[in-house]
């Protein structure tokens, strides 16, 4: 030890700790307020304030249209169906890919199921349509332009959210609880429902809320696979804002979206609050799951593996269709479209490879911002303050950080244009600055970071902190020795998701990107919107490149995860 340890000094001066915590909460909050809340309020305000007076007649107007109710109903229906399916399929997936005995290629399979999550919707739309349209391989199912197709695509996108979230917790769960239940005569099924499932509940709830948010705000998928017939609140906001400039209707719909999302989050928060607690965990790498013997687990393992196998095949189909299309050259096959990725694309000025570099750069910035903001938020949220007021504030904040996923990208994008002309009176036009892009992407990635890091910090047994404190460690020391090791590894994992999410982000990007410096998803979008078979081929090749990039990123960070305790995302 080097002299008097810092923690003791901290204890003598509680205001230092208080200032530190205020900063830890204040910095990320300020970020979210400036780059998310204020723009949204500004945009919604434009719809409700007419000539300086508040005008709320928009509500009666919008809600007197039968279409509005249909759109709200369809949003809830699509998102609920997708969420339920994701959970039903994802929990077995979590078992096979994380809990069951390791098998060759498991790491690759984990990365593989994550690929859809980062694919631009326009690409997935094309891949799905190629499969589902009447002349396609699955055309006989008659799913083209149906609700089923939309829900299938939403599940395709979000399956990995549940798998990773639940799997992350499950693989670290101490198997002795189940063994005890089995020894006492419980059937494998009963043991699962009475022991395992309750332990997994917080992870399931957390994942389900993410899936619901992603599904309820999905835009491209709904339009490409369903059309405006299956319009959701999100597509309706887009139409009202970008096509009609009907800000009143858009504002009403934005508020509606917010209320729906907040309602769902509140329900989830209640579930989590009652479930989330320190769990008996085992040290990473100290476990031989099935070998430890969960009697009868063979049946469970086989059943889960069967479901997972079927899902993997289903997930692979659109991806295979995509790869096949990228290899199709004229009437034959070849790598021509991939070779073309290195040359400046006609009508773009940059090559897809250069765009990939831009994408990676922006994603790096977005990831750093998201880690800083999200990491601090998770740290603050993981505290268990004694005062009830502080506890309630934290519970509110917990829900609040999820909102960027539940608010329309159009509302945020337009709002940024309104508020970033001269932010804080500075003479900098942030709206057209290259800085705004990573910032906008980071606001979307922050909830992912929080959801990854927070459960890890919460799963730390508080007695560990108490023990450290009893042994003379001050608050700072406890943080450094108890929270930091687990938290930092979780941050590493969160970096993977933030990076991948930023890499595939398109909503905010389409408003903020500079055309001569496009990101890879923008290149894909542009190429696919151009005439000529070569352009379409190159677009799919660029999409495959994007998929590979994100799979590699996820796989790299997956290695970090293998040393991480109970991350839940």
């Amino acid at each position, binding site marked *: 030890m080097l002299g008097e340890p810092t923690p003791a000094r901290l204890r003598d001066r509680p205001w230092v700790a208080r200032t530190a915590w205020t900063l830890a909460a204040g910095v990320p909050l300020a970020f979210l307020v400036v780059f998310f809340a204020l723009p949204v309020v500004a945009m919604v305000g434009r719809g409700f304030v007419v000539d300086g007076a508040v005008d709320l007649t928009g509500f009666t107007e919008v809600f007197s249209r039968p279409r509005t109710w249909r759109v709200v109903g369809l949003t809830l229906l699509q998102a609920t169906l997708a969420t339920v399916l994701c959970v039903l399929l994802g929990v077995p997936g979590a078992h096979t890919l994380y809990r069951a005995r390791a098998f060759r290629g498991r790491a690759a399979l984990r990365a593989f199921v994550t690929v859809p999550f980062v694919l631009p919707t*326009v690409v997935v739309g*094309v891949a799905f349509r*190629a499969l589902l349209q009447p002349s396609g391989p699955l055309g006989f199912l008659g799913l083209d332009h149906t609700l089923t197709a939309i829900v299938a695509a939403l599940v395709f996108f979000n399956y990995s959210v549940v798998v990773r979230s639940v799997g992350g917790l499950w693989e670290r769960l101490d198997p002795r609880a189940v063994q005890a239940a089995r020894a006492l005569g419980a059937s494998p099924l009963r043991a699962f429902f009475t022991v395992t499932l309750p332990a997994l509940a917080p992870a399931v709830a957390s994942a389900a809320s993410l899936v619901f948010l992603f599904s309820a705000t999905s835009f491209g998928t709904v339009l490409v696979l369903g059309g405006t017939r299956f319009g959701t609140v999100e597509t309706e906001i887009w*139409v009202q804002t970008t096509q009609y400039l009907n800000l009143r209707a858009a504002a009403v719909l934005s508020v509606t979206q917010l209320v729906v999302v907040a309602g769902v989050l509140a329900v989830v928060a209640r579930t989590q609050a009652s479930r989330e607690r320190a769990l008996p965990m085992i040290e990473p790498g100290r476990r031989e799951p099935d070998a430890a013997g969960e009697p009868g687990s063979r049946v469970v393992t086989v059943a889960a593996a069967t479901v997972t196998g079927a899902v993997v095949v289903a997930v692979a189909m659109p991806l295979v269709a995509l790869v096949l299309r990228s290899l199709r050259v004229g009437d034959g096959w070849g790598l021509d479209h991939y070779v073309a990725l290195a040359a400046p694309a006609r009508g773009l000025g940059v090559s897809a490879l250069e765009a990939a570099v831009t994408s990676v750069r922006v994603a790096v910035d977005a990831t750093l911002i998201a880690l800083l903001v999200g990491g601090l938020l998770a740290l603050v949220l993981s505290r268990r303050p004694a005062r009830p007021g502080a506890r309630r504030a934290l519970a509110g904040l917990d829900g609040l950080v999820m909102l960027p996923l539940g608010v329309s990208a159009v509302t945020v994008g337009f709002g940024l244009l309104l508020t970033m002309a001269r932010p804080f009176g500075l003479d900098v036009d942030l709206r057209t600055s290259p800085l705004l892009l990573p910032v906008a992407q980071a606001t979307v990635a922050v909830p992912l970071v929080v959801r990854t890091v927070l459960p890890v910090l919460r799963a730390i047994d508080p007695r560990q902190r108490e023990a450290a404190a009893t042994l003379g460690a001050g608050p700072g020391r406890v943080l450094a020795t108890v929270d930091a090791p687990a938290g930092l590894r979780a941050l590493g994992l969160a970096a993977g998701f933030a990076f991948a999410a930023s890499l595939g982000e398109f909503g905010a990007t389409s408003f903020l990107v500079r*055309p001569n410096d496009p990101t890879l998803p923008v290149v894909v979008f542009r190429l696919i919107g151009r005439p000529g078979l070569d352009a379409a081929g190159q677009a799919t090749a660029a999409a495959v490149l994007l998929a590979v990039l994100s799979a590699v990123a996820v796989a790299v960070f997956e290695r970090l995860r293998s040393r991480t305790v109970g991350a839940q995302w």
Partner: protein
Amino acid sequence: MIHDHRHRRGAGLVALLAAAVLGLAGCSAVGTGSGGAAADTVTLVTHDSFWLPDEVFEVFTEQTGLTVRVVSQGDTGSLVNQLVLTKDAPLGDAVFGIDNTFASRALEAGVVVPAHLEAPALPDARAHALPGDDGALVAIDYGDVCVNIDDAWFAASDLAPPATLDDLVRPEYRSLFVTPNPVTSSPGFAFLLTTIAASGDTGWPGYWTALKANDVQVASGWTDAYQSAFTAGGGGGDRPVVVSYASSPPFTVPDGGSTPTTSALLDTCFRQVEHAGVLAGAKNPDGAALLVDFLLSDTVQQAIPGAMYMYPVSTSVALPDDWARWAPVATDPFTVDPAAVATHREEWLNRWTDLGVG
């Protein structure tokens, strides 16, 4: 701070993370960007289909000493609406890409102002001027949205290809036609305007009801309609009739062939004209006027077909050979008064949506 060697593992992790952060920051995008609007730059605000080669802008810089900064703001509708919303603090100096279906909204809101222009091609541009515009918007390029057909498909079947809008509702062409959604796609909206111009304000819902009865397919956008559903779009589609552009056929000349396998029906076209202008409140209005002049120069006009698949307004530049041969424009395209479009857009699209076609 960590003061104890027993926690080297934690310290090592922190160091590793710090190193990673620094390493990553090295390939960060921040700092690679250009600064704000300086006196020697002019900012062009445009839509996400805009593109011109860098060499073209280099010519402008050589001529004027000004550097062009391009910012794109979503599709045409998003572009115009964002300009309206940011009128008090404009996003740039000049705009390109306001088409004749959104022009009235831009003019009414006063987002563009007339400027002193000197381009020799100005009279060509004026031929496409909007009614009632005092010169704030200058036509730069145009294109025709027309029904395209897969000639190869019809040659292989016993069916004579359709030629008119009325043909599309005849039973022999049942389940053959796909169009992009007018609510979410600009060519889709252009086709809706075609039907409004052709069938009149009272007749068009009936026409669409007939299309629906004839099993028209509504795709979300041009990409979905042409690349996925159209038989000649490479996506294995099964609809040989699609709404696309008069400039689409040259792109279907097969490798080794000399004739396109598709053609545009020139009696079904709606003309889209894209305009440029100087933004009200521009920081560099003189530079903006120079840029609009430059958009009418032969340098840009010649580059437009290859870069943006539109036709140059200037009559002093030649079209690419394959366009001249295979992509004629309509001699008498359908038109709708831009002011009527501005007034009725939402109403028409709501009526269309209520028909339950797509």
